[in-house]
């Protein structure tokens, strides 16, 4: 099953153009959607998750027209929103049971078994009787993914799931995601490039409502191999360098600025060619697109 998004557009009532003619092709497996804050990722996620309408365009999930058949989508959907809460006084077990029932697991015996399995799978078994209001961020996210998985979904959407988690929790969560079957479409929408690098076989970069790049991460990196240069520069040189070259990023290492630059050929003295990483590609693309707009 494929998720095909064609020419999707959405402008909010206050004039913000959240999505402009977005087209994406998403097969089964992990798909990473990268973009800065305000790029339109959440709008896109919510639209696919049947929580919002679009102004124009279409989304097809296999045979289903998402925009006009939301009920059919919800039967095979698991959605973990960016910001969410739960019934704070209830136990994890009770909450999961409540949502599982709403997903169609009508038989109480089956539901109980499912809830237990999911809690064990997400490592919340020992906390199952504890009130959800006292959960840490990571535990809440894991419960969220358990809820998303409760209906045996074929499409799982996770929106900014690891923002605010400590490294341990983040890894645990990503492990969980990776275990969701290969025949399920999993869309991971995030601004953390590492997450996409670790998990995703396909990716897209979105900025200011437009898709700026789409494809296989390896291919994407191949395309820029040999074009990324690094130099340790002095603070005083920065302004001149920025004017002359395509500076992707400026970082501080031990107090001294280190810049990455995109250039087809060697940009000059002190520059060393480096192995490109996804962040370079991301920053380059996002920056270029921004400059193109200006």
């Amino acid at each position, binding site marked *: 099953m494929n998720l095909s998004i064609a020419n999707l557009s959405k402008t909010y*009532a206050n004039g913000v153009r959240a999505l402009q003619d977005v087209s994406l092709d998403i097969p089964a497996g992990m798909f990473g959607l990268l973009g800065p804050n305000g790029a339109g990722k959440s709008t896109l996620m*919510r639209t696919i*998750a*049947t*929580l*919002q*309408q679009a102004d124009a365009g279409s989304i097809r999930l296999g045979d289903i027209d998402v925009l006009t058949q939301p*009920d059919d989508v*919800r*039967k095979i*959907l698991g*959605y973990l*929103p960016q*910001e*969410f*809460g*739960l*019934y*704070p*006084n209830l136990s994890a077990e009770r909450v999961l049971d*409540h*949502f599982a*029932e*709403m*997903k*169609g*697991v*009508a*038989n109480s015996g*089956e*539901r109980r*078994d*499912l809830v237990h*399995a*999911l809690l*064990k*799978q997400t*490592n*919340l*078994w*020992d*906390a199952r009787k*504890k*009130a959800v*209001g*006292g*959960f*840490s961020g990571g*535990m809440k996210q894991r419960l*969220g993914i358990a*809820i998303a998985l409760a*209906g*045996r979904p074929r499409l799982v959407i996770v929106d900014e799931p690891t923002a605010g988690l400590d490294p341990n929790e983040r890894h645990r969560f990503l492990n969980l995601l990776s275990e969701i079957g290969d025949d399920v479409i999993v869309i991971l929408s995030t601004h953390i490039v590492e997450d996409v690098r670790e998990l995703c076989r396909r990716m897209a970069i979105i900025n200011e409502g437009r898709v700026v790049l789409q494809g296989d991460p390896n291919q994407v990196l191949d395309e820029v191999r040999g074009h990324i240069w690094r130099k340790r520069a002095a603070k005083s040189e920065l302004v001149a360098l920025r004017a002359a070259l395509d500076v992707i990023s400026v970082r501080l290492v031990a107090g001294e600025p280190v810049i990455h630059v995109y250039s087809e050929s060697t940009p000059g003295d002190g520059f060393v060619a480096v192995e490109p990483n996804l962040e370079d590609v991301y920053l380059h693309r996002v920056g270029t697109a921004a400059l193109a707009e200006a």
Partner: protein
Amino acid sequence: MFWTVFKFELSYWFRRPLTLLFFALFFLLAFFATASDAFIGFASGQIHRNAPFVLATMIAVLTAIGQVITTAIAGTAVLRDAQLGTEELLFTTRVSKSGYLVGRFVGAFIIMLVIYSALPIGLLVGSVMPWVPAEKMGPVQIAAVFQPFFTIAVPNLLFVSALLFAVGALTRRLFAVYVTGIILLVAWQITQAIVGQLDKVRLASLIDPFAITTVNSAVRYWSVAEKNTQVVPLAGAMAQNRMVWIAAAIVLFAVVATVFRLRLQQARASHRARKATVAERVVVPPTPAVTLHYDRASWIRAFVSQSRFHLRSILREPPYLAISLIYLINLMIGLWFQMRPQESARWPVTSLFAPVVGNGLFVFTVLLATLYGGELVWRERQIKADQLQDATPVPTWVPFGAKLLAVFLSIAILVFVASAGSMLMQLSQGYARLEPAVYLQVIVLIALPSALAITALAMGVHALVNQKFVGHLIIIAYWVLLQVVSSLGFDHRLYQVGRPPDFTYSDMAGWGPYTPRVLTISYYSIAFCLTLASLGLLVLVRGTDASWSARQILAAKRWRRGGAVATGAFGVAAIVLGFLFFHNANTLNAYTEVHAAERGVKAWEVKYKPLQHLPSPRLVRVSLRHDYYPERRAAAWHGTLAAVNRDARPVDTLFVTVPPSAPRPTSLFEATSNTGVALDSLVFDRDAQLVLDDTPNGVRLYRLAKPLAQGDTLTVRFAGRFEPRGYPNDAFNNDVSANGSFMNMQYVPSFGYPEQTELSDDEARRRNGLEPKPRMKKIDDPVVRATNYISQEADWITFDETTCTAADQISIAPGYLQREWTENGRRCFQYKMDRPILNFYATLSARYEVTKADYNGVKLEIYHIPEHAFALPSMMQASKDGLDYFGKNFSPYLYRQYRIIEFPRYAGFAQAFPNTIPYSEGIGFIYRKEEGDDKIDFAYFVTAHELAHQWWGHQVVGGNGQGSTMFSEGLAEYSALTIMEKRFGREAAQKFLRRELDGYLRGRGTERKKEVPLLYVENQPYIHYQKGSLAFYALRDYIGEDAMNAALSAFLAKWALKGPPYPTARDLYGELDKQTPDSLKYVLNDLFEEMTFYENKADTATTSKRPDGSWDVHLVLDAKKLKGDSVGTTKEVPIADYVDVGVYGDRVPGQKLGEPLLVKKVKITQPVTVLDVIVSKEPKKAGIDPYNKLIDRTPEDNVIAVSNRR
């Protein structure tokens, strides 16, 4: 810092449209109160629409119910930062705690004041509108309008704002703020209930934060004139109250200032402890196979389990528990006051208690339905779980319906608990006949349908409106509208969706005719509200887009998928039931709104009044055959009337009055029609041509071929019947019921223009373009003596009646039973009077048990239902005592029987027909005699009063003018009091008189026309009953019992059974005058000819012991005498009166004041009198007019404690 926060708060609220909305609301309310007829609750009759008292009351009440607004503004002042998440930003700036708190509070408070200032402004603007009738308004005094604002509104708002602000700041939960407001309101209600016991007025005035009770108590005895001109002074209880509550506000604020921290609300420690440390990876089993079901049956199961889910969460909420507790406390207090209305005591019968359980739930239903309905509709959005839920395949009706059911059940549980509580209270009072079936009926027919309807309404509104606060406002406004709408004349039940239907449950007749109406209304409400809920469900937001375009798309889809069917089904049911009700109320029973009915009566008067002075024959004989059909609630009658022309003019046109079926107003708000009544035939013994047939309006005009000369007799045979059709919107005609029927002579045709049909109320007449008419003819008008006030169509008639009823019932009419037989399966009784009676008779029927006694040749009989045997001994005793005393001291009893007959609680009075007393089941028969010297036996008293009417009314009856009710009702009341005092002692009598004094003083303040002295009383109950008993008792005290009885018996001897010409109050006055010595003639004048008031007070009372063991008592007594006019303005007059002075010792049983050491009449001639007396024992209390025989507005300051002189 303070200024920044303060200015921000002000500008925040000034920019919101909600603020303007509130201001406009209050402005319009006050404007319409002055400029229109709309709100007659506060200002009525003589009280001006812009009276300071009216504004004071309005402000006090509106600060109470305007809590929703105070919650929104003051309650959220600090909360807002928690809700919006700006706390962290704000608390890390340099803002100081005091600057923050004071700034927020003062800002919110100022806004509240601005909004409430709309009230006096609206009142002022309304009062200068050109179209307002001048007599409804007093002079426009700006000071008088703003004084109540400053003395009442400002402190009220200060306290309420401080309280809600404190709760909001300390709990950071909006829900807690709402609930605090509710608790405050109900606590206020409880205070008001406590004030029902007179002695606690002071305390109740102090503990009322809204000053509503305080205002009411302050003006309790104000006359109409005073209410119109005076402001409630900031003195006495009012000043103390204001100080108490301002201090409370300051304390609250201090508490907040101390406890509040510029920090985030910490999560509870226990939650912290529960944060888990998760162990490393557990063995993960393979994911089990599950089948996903999306069929209807599975969703219904999910619906049930979600209902349980939400119900459990509601039941655990502290606010729900708090509201439930308040409801139960409130209910218990309500039940308590059912048992003890105005110092009497009644048995806690289920027919009294169960309706309280059913009706008392309504306001709590509304509160719980909107609070929790709103909360649940918004729940997922508030905890941010909405996206999770909306992305599941659950159909929207499942969570919505489950929430509706959960809220409904949370309310239903309350009413079951309440019934259990009520039954416990019955048992605790020693009453064991609990009748649980009746409770269940009330729950299922009345309480639960209303709860379901209101819940559905609240949820539908919240779903539609999609703004929680506005949703609450709409529901509360709807409830307020329901209260008000009836008083505006819109009393058709189809508008009043959700309100529990009216009903009266009688121990005699059970549910009577109410069941079909109750069912129709209840199901109509449910269907209507479920339709609204379905519509709400159609547009309920799902997903993250709350715009109307998104909701429209959702609605279209839901409509196609069953929304149409559901909405349609409920809608059709509502329409069908609505039509059924409409058919019954409007078609079969000619529902008419009261103002339209008034117009009909006006038209009737305009048409027929010109015929008022046509000569009419006077009735001399009534021979009646009456048939009751209790199982059908129907009756039929036929008979013969004989009438004589006593007028010098011959009668050629007969004005015949028959019972009308057209709508007539029954009060200022309601009108009823009597569509079931019909006149079948009217046949004269001579040639009479029907020239005008207006039977629906009760009029028929006949032209006699040969005029009836003076002295000639005319007979007419008539037949009529009563068959009720369906049910009406307002009051049923319950004259006939399955068990308990009571029909009087109004169904029998009569001759002459019935003046009593005309509109009597001044305002009603003006509204309809008629001149106000004098309430009654002046006492000296010669025409007064021509007819008696009981019946204008007859003097004394001969009477006989045969009445037949169902085989298992007994039927009674005035007269001695001649014979009893059975015919056609029906039981018949023939009664005949052996001497003439007034044209005042009634026929009763029910399945009675009869309790009999023979007393000195008089047969005493009480007809009652077996379950109501509580008060029989009191009734019997009163009858015997009365027959003894009245027979000996007034004149011999005329009849050989005295019968008391129970009738259903549809009316709550007792009435004296000749030797026949119908007596409501709701009074007397369930009264309970309590032990104690100061307990009044009401069953005894009312029986005695009605027995006394056999003299005052049935032996001597007054003319049709002023003063006649003085000697029928006034003397009946006095006579009953006399034998009660002999039987129970002076203590009980004193207690009764204090109650009468309170009733008189309060009654004056609500007078709709004008007050008059007792001699000129115009059928005003507070004068002829209350002032009457006070006056006659006081007179007896001055002239002595023998002199009194001599006057009364002389009056009877001269006027009994005479007429025309009939006696007037002047004749009684003349007899009393003969028995009054010259020195006391002023008393007679003060009590009867004028309106006299005293302001007596014991200023100082000191004592010292004399060497011989006796005691010197030094008294300083104030006395002031005033005379009043018709609106209650008083002026001081010189005093030269004999007034009791009393000195009392230790308490003894039977004497509330103490052992009387010295009681004598002293002539008071100065405003201040100094007296020195000697008594034998130590004095404890002393005072002037200690028994309150004189009318005094502050009776409690007449007696003070005696202190030792140093």
